[in-house]
């Protein structure tokens, strides 16, 4: 005969009961855009450091300008998620080393000057000249400041590139650590989430760059990098889930949301199938001479990257320590 267990509670707090429901699409969109920006910064920074042969295409030179713009859109999403938006400035009155969100707030601040400096470096010379001419026609003060900044940035290209790689990697890891440090949410609470989100960020960053009109050599290099990153991401997803499944009851309950639970179908079709395996095969077929439009594969990677964060944000809230204890005892 089965033992009866019935738990009743008088608590009925909105967003907490019957299940946690505090973070929504805004957070997923912010994590996605943060990942894309991290990818663009790291890849463009590496491009500056490695100096591939030949002149870079105009689009590759201009697209780093979109990094601070995408980041601003992401921060707008993050701001929209706050329940007390007028207190947002409080993030910048203190640094709390134990809080990943505090780290993120300060990293975001460092991203702006770093990404703008790199975008200025990669801007084609003709355009730089036109901007300088325009500044000179407005005021000599503006022209002097711009020339001064140009001088500083142009003489420290390698340093700017290294700062972009480090800050971009920090941003990418932070987007995963934000969730990964939540000990009471077993699906999130894994050290793999930082590297997983960084890898996904690099992959979506490469895919985002592939949407632009690039030279063949640039396109092939980015597509090759993306294929390697997709394989790495698949490996990290496997390690993450194996790690959870070999853990305690709480970790297994967390993994269950993606392995038979409510988010299983969405995760394996949208993220793994549509967002990773299919674009990998597309890029592989294109390399072997097949007629697969590169932008289609890139678009799929981007959709998969957004779906990854969206599903993890929602699925992670589905199981907490409290739910596991209630089910066990």
């Amino acid at each position: 005969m089965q033992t009866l267990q019935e738990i009743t509670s008088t608590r009925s707090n909105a967003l907490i009961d019957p299940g946690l429901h505090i973070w929504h699409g805004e957070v997923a969109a912010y994590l996605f855009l943060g990942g894309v920006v991290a990818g663009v910064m790291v890849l463009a920074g590496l491009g500056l450091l490695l100096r591939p042969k030949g002149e870079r295409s105009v689009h590759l030179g201009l697209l780093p300008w979109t990094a601070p713009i995408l980041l601003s859109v992401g921060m707008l999403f993050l701001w929209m998620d706050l329940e007390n938006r007028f207190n947002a400035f409080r993030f910048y009155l203190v640094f709390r080393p134990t809080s990943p969100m505090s780290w993120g707030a300060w990293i975001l601040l460092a991203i702006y000057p770093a990404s703008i400096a790199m975008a200025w470096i990669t801007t084609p010379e003709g355009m730089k000249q036109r901007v300088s001419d325009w500044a000179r026609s407005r005021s000599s003060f503006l022209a002097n400041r711009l020339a001064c900044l140009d001088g500083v940035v142009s003489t420290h290209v390698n340093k700017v590139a290294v700062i972009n790689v480090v800050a971009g990697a920090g941003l990418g890891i932070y987007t995963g650590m934000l969730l990964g440090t939540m000990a009471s949410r077993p699906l999130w609470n894994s050290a793999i989430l930082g590297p997983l989100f960084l890898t996904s960020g690099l992959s979506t960053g490469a895919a985002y760059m592939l949407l632009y009109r690039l030279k063949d050599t640039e396109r092939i290099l980015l597509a090759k990098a993306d294929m390697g990153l997709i394989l790495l991401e698949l490996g990290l997803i496997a390690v993450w889930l194996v790690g959870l499944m070999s853990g305690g009851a709480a970790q297994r309950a967390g993994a269950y949301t993606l392995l038979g639970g409510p988010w299983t179908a969405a995760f394996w079709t949208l993220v793994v199938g549509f967002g990773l395996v299919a674009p990998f095969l597309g890029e592989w077929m294109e390399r072997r001479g097949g007629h697969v439009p590169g932008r289609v594969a890139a678009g799929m990677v981007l959709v998969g990257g957004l779906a990854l964060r969206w599903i993890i944000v929602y699925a992670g809230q589905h199981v907490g320590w409290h739910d596991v204890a209630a089910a066990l005892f």
Partner: protein
Amino acid sequence: MSRVRYAMAIDTHTCVGCTACVMACKTENNVVEGFNRVWVTQDLQGIFPDLSLTIQSERCNHCEDAPCVSVCPTGATHVGPGGIVLVDEDKCTGCKACIAACPYGARFIDPRTGTADKCTFCAHRSEHDVYTTACQDVCPTRSIHFGDMNDPDSDIARVLATRESYTLLPEAGTSPRLFYLK
């Protein structure tokens, strides 16, 4: 003398689940309609007719190692006098990281202010080291014990020393200061 460390112990033998503590807390702290800082759970187990019922009056555990405090990016959630975990409304951005971090589901967003809210152990009453909480005052079976657990002469120190007790989710590693007497 050691510093003050407030704790609460609830006698599960004498608690009848009347929810007077829930109502007293809402009235005392002007808790917004539809939300609770204190709630009562009833856990019924066994095979009829051999059933056991555990009634628990639950609230913030004021953990010694509080995850809500460490994840707060602005310092709004902090450890106040006597180890009570408090929220400074003026600093709270409503980012909800503390709600995600709390394993007990003890926190919520007050829709009037957009800030995190939860039990304060009635800290506004603590003009003196010895005080009572609103839920403790109304408990008809005197099941709620509260006070300075570092003071060996206090009621809470005595019941914790003489009775067996347990905490919720000890596996979460938060060292709660809300005990349940067996």
